[in-house]
């Protein structure tokens, strides 16, 4: 038993729903109690889908438990096939149905349905959403893909994008364009918008592009082993990764075409002088393993940030993220406990967080700007505009995403110069975020600086000076000064201590 306040991932059957909802012509019959239909709103509200997810819930209640829930399952199954006329169905149980052990797979098998029935075994009490999506997609591919001739032209499949994926819609479009520039056609994208007959055609491609390892890796491995299709290991998020991806595809296929880079603005945007202020900004990165790995590279090599911590919530990615952390000289935080993430951020007090919607809330509470780079998703993560993460346009989009929460170039200096200005005070926040501005309250009682360590006290001169430091670096200045004082065995922080600490930490 583990107390959980907020979760990064839903249960595994929600992962299977993300696959079913992404596809067309497939129906999911889910043995589940009343109330599990809440999951529909994730798709209809967060993603603004205009169709109900293709899921039939058996909706059993307490009074059914003593009676015949198995018949209820068979009836729902038959009704779903009659009503929705799918090409194939997947069947499975949610957490409660797993406990009553009706065996949906066995039941569906006895019904003699004329369409393929794909059973899912998703252990609800040990695994989570990403596993559910990966496993469901793998089972579908395993059941439906057929051996066949390769296409004449060089083609690939794009594997992994699901419903409720982080920017999956636009990533598929961007990636398709990139591959097309290289002279490679896309055979099938799956699961997003694929039908069961499309899944059957997967083995016709020459290789697979694994866009989302979280939700597509098991299928990619299956296709590699059984249909001799290699799959790409680089996820093309960021300028460097996109170029590596292009090289990887060239090696797999022998294709020599290079995509057009004229629309790639990110490198110049990052080199131009306004971006100087980004140098060495201390960032903490947390999310799903794939996006975290990609953003660590972007942060360090393409934005010039200093990465002070990385981590992921999906244990399946623990190993690569730990290895990456070692390379970056930081500790990896592998946890799905939101309170642990919050504590880590508080301890590291970064100047910026690259995280999920959860970290956005943590940042709000701690006063640290946050850019959202990974699922779990929120209605805001489905913008109306084209907004991919992969490829060259993705790199442009990410540059904008990462600088948006920050105070911009010269503004940062102005804030320092005029820090007691009545309009330009700290609480006004970045000038392009109107909503965050707070009117300055002049005679608000000065809050006492509470040192982290009881053995150190701030003298009033130093405390006043600390308040003059802009809010977005004040936390760091305070922490550094206190650490400095403790290291020197000082119990009081004077004005001199503050500036000695500043000199000590100057880079």
């Amino acid at each position, binding site marked *: 038993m583990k107390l*959980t306040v*907020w979760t990064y991932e839903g249960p595994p059957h929600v992962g299977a729903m993300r696959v079913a909802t992404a596809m067309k012509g497939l129906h999911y019959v889910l043995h589940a*109690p009343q109330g599990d239909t809440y999951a529909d709103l994730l798709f209809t509200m967060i993603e603004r*889908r*205009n*169709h109900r997810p293709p899921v039939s819930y058996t909706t059993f*209640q307490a009074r059914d438990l003593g009676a015949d829930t198995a018949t209820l399952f068979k009836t*729902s199954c038959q009704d779903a096939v009659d009503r929705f006329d799918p090409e194939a169905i997947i069947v499975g149980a949610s957490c409660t149905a797993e406990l009553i052990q009706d065996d949906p797979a066995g039941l569906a098998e006895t019904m003699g349905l004329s369409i393929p029935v794909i059973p899912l075994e998703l252990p609800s009490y040990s695994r989570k959403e990403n596993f559910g999506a990966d496993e469901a997609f793998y089972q579908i591919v395993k059941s439906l893909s057929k051996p066949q001739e390769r296409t004449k032209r060089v083609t690939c499949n794009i594997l992994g994008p699901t419903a409720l994926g982080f920017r999956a819609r636009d990533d598929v479009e961007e990636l398709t364009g990139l591959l097309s520039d290289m002279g490679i056609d896309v055979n099938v994208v799956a699961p997003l918008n694929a039908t069961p007959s499309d899944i059957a055609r997967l083995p016709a491609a020459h290789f697979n592009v694994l866009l989302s390892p979280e939700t597509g890796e098991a299928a990619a491995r299956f296709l590699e082993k059984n249909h001799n299709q290699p799959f790409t290991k680089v996820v093309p998020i960021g300028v460097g990764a996109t170029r590596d991806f292009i090289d990887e595809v060239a090696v797999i296929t022998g294709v020599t075409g290079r995509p057009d880079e004229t629309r790639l603005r990110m490198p110049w945007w990052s080199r131009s002088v306004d971006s100087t202020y980004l140098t060495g900004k201390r960032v903490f990165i947390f999310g799903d393993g794939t996006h975290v790995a990609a953003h660590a590279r972007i942060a360090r090599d393409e934005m010039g940030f200093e990465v002070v911590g990385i981590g992921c919530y999906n244990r399946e990615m623990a190993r690569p993220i730990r290895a990456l952390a070692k390379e970056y000289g930081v500790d990896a935080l592998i946890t799905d406990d939101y309170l642990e993430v919050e504590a880590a951020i508080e301890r590291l007090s970064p100047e910026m967080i690259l995280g999920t919607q959860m970290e956005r809330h943590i940042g709000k509470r701690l006063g640290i700007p946050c850019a959202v780079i990974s699922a779990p998703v929120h209605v805001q993560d489905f913008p109306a505009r084209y907004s991919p993460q992969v490829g060259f346009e993705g790199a442009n989009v990410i540059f904008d995403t990462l600088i948006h929460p920050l105070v911009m170039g010269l503004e940062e200096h102005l804030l320092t110069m005029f820090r007691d200005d009545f309009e330009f005070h700290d609480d006004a926040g970045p000038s392009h975020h109107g909503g965050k501005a707070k009117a300055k309250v002049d005679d608000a009682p000065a809050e006492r600086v509470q040192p982290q360590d009881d053995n150190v006290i701030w003298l009033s001169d130093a405390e006043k000076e600390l308040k003059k430091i802009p809010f977005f670096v004040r936390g760091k200045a305070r922490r550094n000064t206190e650490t400095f004082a403790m290291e020197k065995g000082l119990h009081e922080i004077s004005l001199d201590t503050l500036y000695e600490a500043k000199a000590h930490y100057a880079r």
Partner: protein
Amino acid sequence: MNVPLPPANGGCRTTPVLKERGQREVFCGLTGIIWLHRKMQDAFFLVVGSRTCAHLLQSAAGVMIFAEPRFGTAILEEQDLAGMADAHVELDREVEKLLSRRPDIRQLFLVGSCPSEVIKIDLARAAERLSQVHAPHVRVLNYSGSGIETTFTEGEDACLASMVPVLKDTQERELLVVGALPDVVEDQMVSLLTDMGVGPIRLLPARRIDDTTAVGQNTVFALTQPFLGDTHAELERRGARHLAAPFPFGDEGTTAWLRAIAVEFGVSEETFEAVTAAPRARARKAIAQAAEALRGKSVFFFPDSQLEIPLARFLTRECGMTAVEVGSPYIHDALHGPDLDLLPAGPQISEGQDVDKQLERARAARPDLTVCGLGLANPLEAEGLSTKWAIELVFTPVHFYEQAGDLAGLFSRPLRRKSVLQMEAVE
């Protein structure tokens, strides 16, 4: 006299009800925790359940509106199910940790879920044991919010019903008003009744555990929410008497609800008029404004919160709408009867749900406005129907006079929006 007259063509109380069962597009009772934990400011709700329960609470709450919420889920893991760990020992440990971190918690609700019910974790026994350990500082109660036993708002009913047996005894003649209302609305209601000289007034749920809510033979109680069937039964078991009335939505509902109490407490007609005249006039004016967009339009209710029947009464009698179908997850005559009496005959009254069949009826009827859950709203909008998300009716202050206009506004906004959006090319 302002007593609402039953419709000329008869009401709906004796109309045959279409009872359906099948897939239900509704929340389970755990959802009530979202508003109950804001109402009871010293309470923590600990769900004993699965990752699905935690995910539901997070999704229904619109993802993390509250910094550190006073609810959480003790997620059952493989070892709990395999009997390798004693669920009670595990639960005691989690509660201990929780209460030591949150000394502000005075009431702890252990909330049962589908998995905890199926594997039969005895939360009543756990609550008793934990009460002994943590008394007197913390009171521990239990109820089930599981989907196999409760539908959406029935979670609040189960929670309040669990509190009735531990209410203090009283022989005083008191009015007990039952149902979680936003504080601002509750204050308005108390002030209206106090101005009429009705009192003492007690509230269930009270905002804090130390508040003086008690019950006994001389208690009369009024329900502010139409989904409190079990609480109603528990209160009667304690000897209290129910004042049946239409629910306080709109001018007419509010007046009828207040009148039932006023009559019981011998309030004079003059006093009643003096207290209610001004807010009634305001309510009428506000409703009239919002109802312009609703007059002559048809409405179809999918079952959701059990508010459907009283709201259909409000929309048909005060906003000029016609009801096509009024679906409710459950219909209790003792609670919904007075509203059914006033709802003009005509609509199909349905109880329970087989969602695909009901969708077919809605598509055939093409109502001007469909009131439904979040899972159905966008798909129906995409088919050209206008919808109102039902959950907003539970999360928004809509009771009594001062909110009557807002209530009508919730229904008129989707129709107004449709009429203001112009995206076609100008010819």
